[in-house]
């Protein structure tokens, strides 16, 4: 190679390196405000996307005004794939300072990878510590009872029903027990246009491959006193008589009594909500408080005309009521360099004003006193409030996501008629036990 060519290559390489260094330095300088504590906060985009994003933006602006030495960088991302991403960044040591978790199913797995700061000491000193539902706090505790996060919204499901259809079915009050639920559903299921085909059904069931199907199955199992796992979470309890009966009833609503549309095994939660909005089903038994926003947007005339009723979920006669609980928490990264500032942000996030603003969009507040304020005093929220003392999450294990998939898969097969409910419970017991051994 000639010396001229060598010089040209060296000069080009050197210029590239220098440019890269200057660029990176410049970008870094611009990104970080001088002399400020930087907090990164990851939140998922869920029901109520735009309002949720706006609310978080406003909340952060208010926080930064009160704490001018702290800058919070918000990242909102789709729910799908959120947890694998979060696990990856925790493993890589570049996790955000604060993040959201689905506490019921994620507390134990994320605690297993030492991803979260324990908050017991800080929580004990917090003036509003007695204002949180114990069921929400319990969901945020790890297997040793340490508090890994603070609940920011709770999630139980209530019965949404068409009042006009209920009256046509001969009922003045919504069903309280399973036998009433079935009777009402059967009376609501009919051919409305006289063409000999059923075109209106009693219940919308989310039988599709998603989280709502899992909650649907869990609710009936839990109501009947059944559990997925034994108390020590070491073996499956899904094949117990109580769990089997609950599972059987959940399947029979479609397979035996035909009170839900035939396409049920393909319906996600959103599809079932659409069925209600478009007058195809008369009751929803697996829908959260966000549905109020959906009704307002897509069928405002229904609640306006008083045609929608809200009730606690039907239970089993003679057994104590149980309502399946979901919890979303806000957690602090164990390795954050700014734990005190992160805790200040968490407290601000869950303060009176922002807990209310957040819960209005998301569904149910995690704080007891928030139910006494604004829209939470209104009728649609009454059943949620009544259910709280009896709400419980499932027994804790690191394998929740896999167990969820097992339940959803076999529920879908049972709803499709491929296997019976009894066979499904036996298969689930085998698969869960194999999984727990791994």
């Amino acid at each position: 190679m000639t010396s001229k060519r060598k010089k040209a290559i060296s000069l080009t390489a050197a210029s590239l390196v220098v440019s890269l260094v200057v660029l990176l330095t410049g970008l870094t300088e611009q990104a970080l405000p001088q002399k400020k504590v930087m907090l990164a906060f990851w939140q998922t985009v869920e029901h109520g996307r735009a309002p949720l994003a706006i609310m978080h933006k406003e909340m952060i602006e208010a926080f930064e005004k009160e704490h001018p030495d702290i800058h919070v960088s918000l990242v909102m991302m789709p729910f799908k794939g959120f947890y694998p991403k979060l696990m990856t960044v925790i493993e890589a040591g570049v996790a955000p300072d604060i993040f959201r978790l689905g506490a019921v199913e994620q507390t134990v797995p994320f605690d297993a990878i030492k991803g979260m700061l324990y908050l017991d000491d800080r929580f004990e000193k917090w003036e509003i510590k007695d204002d949180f539902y114990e069921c929400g706090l319990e969901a945020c505790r790890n297997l040793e009872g340490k508090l890994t996060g603070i609940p920011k919204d709770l999630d139980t499901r209530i019965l949404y029903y068409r009042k006009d259809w209920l009256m046509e079915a001969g009922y003045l009050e919504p069903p309280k027990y399973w036998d009433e639920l079935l009777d009402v559903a059967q009376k609501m299921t009919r051919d409305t246009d006289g063409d000999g085909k059923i075109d209106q059904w009693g219940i919308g069931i989310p039988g599709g491959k998603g989280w709502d199907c899992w909650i649907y199955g869990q609710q009936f199992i839990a109501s009947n006193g059944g559990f997925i796992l034994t108390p020590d979470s070491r073996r499956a309890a899904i094949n117990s008589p109580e769990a089997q009966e609950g599972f059987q009833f959940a399947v029979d609503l479609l397979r035996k009594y035909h009170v839900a549309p035939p396409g049920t095994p393909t319906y996600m939660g959103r599809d079932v909500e659409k069925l209600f909005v478009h007058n195809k089903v008369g009751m929803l038994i697996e829908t959260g408080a966000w549905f109020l926003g959906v009704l307002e947007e897509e069928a405002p005339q229904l609640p306006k005309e008083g045609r929608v009723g809200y009730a606690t979920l039907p239970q089993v006669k003679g057994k104590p009521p149980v309502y399946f609980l979901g919890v979303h928490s806000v957690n602090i990264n164990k390795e954050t360099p700014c734990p005190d500032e992160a805790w200040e942000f968490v407290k601000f996030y869950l303060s009176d004003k922002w807990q209310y603003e957040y819960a209005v969009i998301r569904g149910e507040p995690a704080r007891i006193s928030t139910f006494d304020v604004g829209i939470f005093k209104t009728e649609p929220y009454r059943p949620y409030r009544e259910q709280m003392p009896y709400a419980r999450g499932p027994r804790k294990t690191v394998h929740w996501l896999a167990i969820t998939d097992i339940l959803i898969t076999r529920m879908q097969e049972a709803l499709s008629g491929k296997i019976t409910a009894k066979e499904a419970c036996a298969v689930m017991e085998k698969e869960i036990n194999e999984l727990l051994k791994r």
Partner: protein
Amino acid sequence: MRKGVNTVFQKKIDEIRRYKLAYLLITPACIIGFLVLIFPLLDAIYLSFFNVRIRGVNTFVGLKNYIDFFQSDWSLTALKNTAVWTVCSTFGQFLLGLATALLLNQPIKGRGLFRGIALIPWVTPAVAATATFSWILNDQFGIVNYILLNLGIIKEPVLWLGISLAMPTVIFTNIWKGFPFVMVILLAGLQGIDKAYYEAAEVDGATVWQKFSYITIPQLKPMINVAVLLSAIWNFRYFTLIFTMTEGGPGTATEVLVTLQYKNAFKYLTLGYGSAIGIVIFAFVLVFTLLYYRILRETIKF
């Protein structure tokens, strides 16, 4: 012998010295290729022999992950579904791709426009395509059932994504999505066939079918082999379409190896088991490719 080896080695050194700049320029690509392809593969093989715990201690389990895989009903169902999915998708894409290529090779008006239109499925993002198909095929609100019911072809709405029809439906969607790839390869092949063959056949009084069987197909064979091989490999490991359309459901009706691997590795975080599934997928693709190449070695020309 030693002198011979030294000579060969010396020749290689001289060659590297002579083409120093070329080797320098391809080094970054090789490094990236190693980091992105070879290293993850080696790491996956390594992890597949462990019970992997994130931020914990990995436990060596030997072949347990592989044994668990081949003993699990769920995995064997996924294996069976993968075979059905791959064979049917590849065959369907080949037939439709060949038919379209033959049509678009004709000297028709607007041929360029039609060729462009035929590429639309291929360039449509998979997620957009599956979201659209899911709604088109919805049993209550979908347009397909609406049309079929109104035409009296069906009496009840069909559950296109129900447990019995989910696999044929996703295969159909995949055929629609992937046939342009085959079409483009075969069209290029068709345009390379010398017209003199057809003219000679015409003179001899050959029928359309005879021309197709004795001229078109033999001349297209190398392109067909390439198209089928690439299509089969692509379909075997195609994740996006099934995952976004059915996530492997209902039940395990459309569960394939890649969706099973994704769930185990990234959802349940059983990375060792997920890696083992990945290596099984790799092994199947490798064996298939080697066998295919060996059988058709003479006709594949690159």
